[in-house]
C-alpha cells in the first residue's frame, strides 16, 4: 500500500506491535497507525485505504477491514505522541516482507497514556523482559508531558522492583 502511494508512513502498534519485543499474547485484531493526507477542510479520510483493500477482495467489518484472516484497524495518529511513534518506528521483517513497528518506548508511552489495566500489564511485561531503553523512554515521557503519570505508575507498580 505504501509502495502504491495509498498511505504514507505507517507503524504497527497495540498488542501485535508489542509482540516484537515480548512473548506472543492473544489479540483479536491488528492496529496500524497510518499517516494520511489532510484535506483542505482539515479532515482525514480512511476511504482510500478501504477502497484499495476492497478492490483486492478484503471485506469491511465494523471498524475493521479483514486482511487475510485478520481484522485490521487503520488509525490516523491523533496527537504528537502517535505521530512521533509512526515517524520513529522500527523496521523489521515478517516472512521476508519488511514492515514497521512502533519502538518499545513509544508503545510503553502510549500504553501509559491509555492507562487501562491491560495497558499497565503490558508495560510491566516490557520491564520484565528488559525490552525498554529507560533513557529513551524518559525523553519521550518528558517530551509528551507524561512524566507525572509515569511517576505514579512507578510508585504503584515498580517501586522496589529491579529493572
Amino acid at each position, binding site marked *: 500500500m505504501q509502495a502504491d502511494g495509498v498511505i504514507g508512513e505507517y507503524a504497527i502498534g497495540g498488542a*501485535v506491535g508489542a*509482540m*516484537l*519485543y*515480548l*512473548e*506472543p*499474547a*492473544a*489479540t*483479536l485484531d491488528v492496529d496500524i497507525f497510518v499517516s494520511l493526507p489532510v484535506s483542505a477542510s482539515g479532515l482525514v479520510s480512511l476511504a482510500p485505504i478501504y477502497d484499495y483493500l476492497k478492490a483486492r477482495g478484503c471485506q469491511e467489518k465494523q471498524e475493521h477491514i479483514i486482511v487475510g*484472516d*485478520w481484522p485490521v484497524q487503520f488509525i490516523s495518529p491523533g496527537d504528537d505522541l502517535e505521530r512521533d511513534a509512526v515517524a520513529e518506528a522500527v523496521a*523489521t*521483517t*515478517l*516472512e521476508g516482507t519488511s514492515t514497521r*513497528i512502533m519502538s518499545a518506548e513509544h508503545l510503553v508511552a502510549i500504553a501509559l497514556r491509555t492507562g487501562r489495566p491491560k495497558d499497565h500489564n503490558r508495560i510491566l511485561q516490557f520491564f*520484565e*523482559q528488559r*525490552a525498554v531503553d529507560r533513557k529513551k523512554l524518559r525523553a519521550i515521557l518528558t517530551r509528551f508531558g507524561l512524566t507525572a503519570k509515569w511517576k505514579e505508575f512507578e510508585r504503584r507498580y515498580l517501586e522496589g522492583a529491579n529493572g
Partner: protein
Amino acid sequence: MGKQEMRKELAALSFSEKVKILEKLRKRSLAFAEAREKRKESTDAPRETSKDSQE
C-alpha cells in the same frame, strides 16, 4: 522449564515465528468465544414443557 524462562524464550523468537503462534492463539480464542456463545444460546432458549413435547 520455569515460567520466566519460557517467556524469555518466546520473547526471543523472530517476529514471523511469533505471528504464527499469535494466529494459533487467535483461532483458539475465537473457538472459545464461539463455544461460549453456543452455550449461552442453549441456556437462554426456552425449555419445552412436557405438554409441548407431547404435541
